[in-house]
Each structure stands twice: as C-alpha cells, then as structure tokens.
C-alpha cells in the first residue's frame, strides 16, 4: 500500500485515523477507480474529434454540396438530433456489432451450421465476434461523435452563413474555385462564429460520457457505484454502509472540473481565433 512508504515521523503527526483513511482511498480498488478516468477521458476526446469532423463535413455538404449529398446531410442532422442520446448510445454499438457479425456469417457459416442455429444470434457460432472493452470504448466514442456531430453540423452551418459575403466574393474575384473558397476562406473564417456553439456541444459530450457504464465499460461512474455500494463481507474488505452519495459527490466535482478547464481552453482558442478580425473582436458580425 502507498501509505506504507510514508516516513514514520509523518505518520506520527497524522495519527492512525488519517493514515487508515489515506490507506483506504489509495488501496487497489480505489487506484482502479482513479485509473478508470482514462476511459472517460478517451471517450470524451474521441467523441469530440469524431463530432467535429462529422459536423463540419455534414454542414459543408448541406450548405454547399451537390443535391443528393445535401439531402443526405440534412436528413442526418434532422434525424439524429431528434433521437435521445442514451438510445443511440445503446443502439449503435449493438447494431454495429451485429451488422459485422452478419457480414462475417455470410463468409464463415455453412448451410449445416446455419441449420443448427435457427432463430439464434449469431447465425452460426463461428460468426461470433466477442468485442472487448477497448472495442466498446471506440464504439462508444464514435456513437457520441455521430450524435453530437449533428449538433455541431447545425452550429457550423449557421456559422458558415455568418461569414460576410464580401469575403467570399473577394475570394472568388481572385479566381479561386468553389472548393478553394470553401477551404481557404469560408471554413477558416467560420470558426470564430462557430466556437461558442461548439463549446456548448462539447459540454454536452463531456456530460454524456457518464453513460459509458451502460456498455459494460468499467469507467469512472461504474467504479464509483461499486465502491460506494454497502459491503457486509469482511472477505471483500472494509465493512461499511451505503456510501454511494460520497462517491457520486466526487463524480460531480470531477465533471465540474472538466467543464471548468474546457471553458478556459475554449476562451483561449477564441481570443486566438479573433486575432486580426476586428469585426468579430468587437462582436459586430
């Protein structure tokens, strides 16, 4: 245990009670809990990155794309925005896994093994894919990205329309093609207008990571639930009552900290983006 390493003098000052609790909150299962923050953070960052890419592509497609692409993007934005995130979070990883299993079964199943397994999933035992928690973590991040990408898309679509027409006309006058205008001028200047909206969506992504335990990922929330649960078995460690609210309080503080740090980062990015854009700096858009 970590407290064993403390010098004796310090232990005497702190007293046995403090040493006991220090030891308790640094025992193996608590260290597992702290380490599980990595899953929460990984899902957050992956979800944010996917949402940004999906969102910008969908917005550009809806505003400037050829007609079929425009319909597709509009459909994505409207449908996915209307679905509860919890539902999509449950639906997407499962549908993805079973979809892969179905494709795989077309190759590996024979008529005999299929006949033995009628009415069961997977279609034949050989086609089973057993996803580990890393795979589920990636799927969770991608699901978050797809759901919140739709919100980012509408933020970005609005921001694209806020870029002054004069800027785009000037770019075209320089002889840039449609794609060049979009890439070099339109999207570059869009960020300043989109940033507050994107920051907002990011906060939603951060908060949605509390859903990870639904996919049997042993994340920060799932561990807190397990550690806080009352324990009557001496073999399982310290016997205690229901302590869940204490652990949930730590979760609340964690999420407030993450959103606080995010806000600082977004405001730093914002002032950097507004450099050399006097109109945006003064809020005159």
């Amino acid at each position: 245990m970590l407290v064993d390493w403390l010098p004796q003098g310090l232990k005497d000052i702190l007293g046995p009670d403090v040493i006991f609790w220090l030891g308790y909150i640094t025992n193996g299962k608590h260290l597992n809990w702290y380490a599980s923050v990595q899953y929460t953070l990984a899902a957050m960052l992956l979800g944010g990155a996917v949402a940004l890419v999906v969102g910008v592509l969908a917005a550009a497609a809806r505003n400037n794309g050829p007609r079929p692409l425009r319909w597709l993007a509009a459909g994505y934005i409207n449908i996915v925005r209307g679905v509860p995130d919890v539902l999509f979070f449950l639906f997407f990883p499962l549908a993805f896994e079973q979809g892969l299993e179905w494709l795989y079964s077309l190759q590996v199943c024979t008529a005999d093994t299929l006949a033995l397994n009628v009415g069961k999933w997977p279609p034949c035992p050989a086609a089973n894919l057993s996803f580990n928690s890393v795979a589920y973590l990636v799927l969770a991040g991608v699901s978050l990205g797809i759901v919140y990408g739709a919100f980012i898309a509408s933020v970005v679509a609005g921001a694209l329309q806020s870029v002054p027409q004069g800027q785009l006309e000037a770019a075209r006058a320089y002889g840039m093609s449609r794609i060049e205008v979009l890439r070099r001028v339109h999207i570059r200047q869009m960020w300043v207008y989109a940033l507050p909206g994107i920051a907002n969506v990011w906060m939603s992504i951060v908060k949605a990571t509390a859903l990870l335990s639904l996919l049997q990922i042993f994340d920060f929330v799932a561990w807190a639930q397990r550690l806080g649960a009352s324990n009557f078995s001496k073999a399982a460690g310290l016997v205690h009552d229901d302590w869940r609210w204490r652990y949930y309080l730590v979760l609340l503080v964690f999420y407030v900290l993450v959103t606080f740090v995010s806000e600082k980062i977004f405001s730093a990015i914002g002032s950097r983006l507004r450099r050399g854009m006097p109109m945006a700096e003064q809020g005159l858009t």
Partner: protein
Amino acid sequence: MKTLVLAIAAIAALTAGAHAQSYKIATEGSYPPYNFTDDSGKLGGYDIDVGTEMCKRAGVECTFITNDWDSIIPNLLANNYDAIMDDMSITDERKQTIAFTDPYFPPDPSTYLTLSTTKVDYANIKGMKLGAQKATIQAGYLDQNFKADNTILTYDTQDQEMADLNAGNLDIIFLDGSVVAEAVAASGGKLKADGPEILIGDGVGVGMRQSDADLTKKFDTALAAMKADGALDALIAKYFPEKAGGPFYKK
C-alpha cells in the same frame, strides 16, 4: 467486398485473442461472499477460489471476467466466455438453455432478510414490499407466490436491494440463506434472518454450454476430487463461517 470480409476477419482474430486451451469464466463481481471485488481491486470470493482450484485440477487455464447478472446466460450462449460461476442455482428452467456441472455448494435454502424491527406474518404476507435480484430463483418464487397482494421489486445487483432495505424502502429481501447469514452477522443486530427456509433449485453449479460436454466432464472430475479431499469444505469454511453443519463433502 473482399477487403471488407478480410477486415472483419482481422477484427475477429484480434478480439478472439489467444485461444490455446484458455477458458474465460464469467462472474458478477458484486455478490459477496460468492464473488466480489476486494480492497486490492481484484476479483475474489468463493466462486473465484473454487473456479481457480477446479481449473488447476482439470489442467486448463482459466481467467475470470465480469459480466452483469441479467445478461450472463445470453453472453455464454454467444460464446463471449466459456463458463458461469456466479452462485447460479441449477434449475429445470435454466437447464433448457444451458448445462451445469455437479453442484459445488451444498443445498442452500433461501430465506427472508428484514430489519430486526420488522414484524411479518409469514403465513399470510400482505401489503409488503418484497425485493429480490432480477432473474434469480428468488425473484421467480416471489412472483409466483406473492404478486397478488404485495409489491415486488427487483434489482440489478445485491447491494442495491441491501441499500433499499437499510433505508426502509423495502420490507423484506428474499435471498440465499448463506448470504443472509453473512449479512446478518455483519449488521451488528440491525438485520435479522426471518421466516421459513425454502429450498428452490438443485444447488449451485458451473453454468456451461450444452455443446461443451467434454469440458463439463473435466470440471465434474475436478470438483469430485475437491469434494473428496476436503478442499471444497475448507473454502466453504473460509467464506461462510456462519454456515453450520459441516463437513459437507469430505467422506
């Protein structure tokens, strides 16, 4: 299409991992004293110790993984692991979908757990809130016998029903007698075991796929050896100090 299939095969190979006679056993990790996560963060408990010894004697390599109780049978059937050791009672209903090894815990009647201040007329339970864990033999029993006149609440995990009982949101929990005995002993007089003992099921066995008859036989042989030389009795004494009437298996 071809690259797609190759990609899926690659994922399958990655997720399948090393399959050299290594078996995965699923447990819940939150059903003390059968299985739990101990203070060092590792899985421990009666199920885990029995399983580890059983695999050693059967000459196979086993690792324990956690899976929620309510999806533990479907995931066994989907080949996500090879066995279940989670205080699972052998019942005719479960035998229709999975197979079991011989029992590794002596017949354990279920009984009622209440706050020591609660008074119940067990011959005529009415207007009570009764709790059990979802998809357990006890939940099935409550549903069959007390549904009409009482409220039946089911929980995902054992600790949730314990929390509700302690908070007064629940009058009675129906649970394995061995677990009730440990919980009462640790409660310092707050809880009591109460009412009649009711034997449901045919003991606790390792849940197996019906197609894995060879592995089931191997486990049965290992368990029989553990019963004969007293290893199983020693583990029962270790995890269930309140259980009277041993030795249970040693001849």
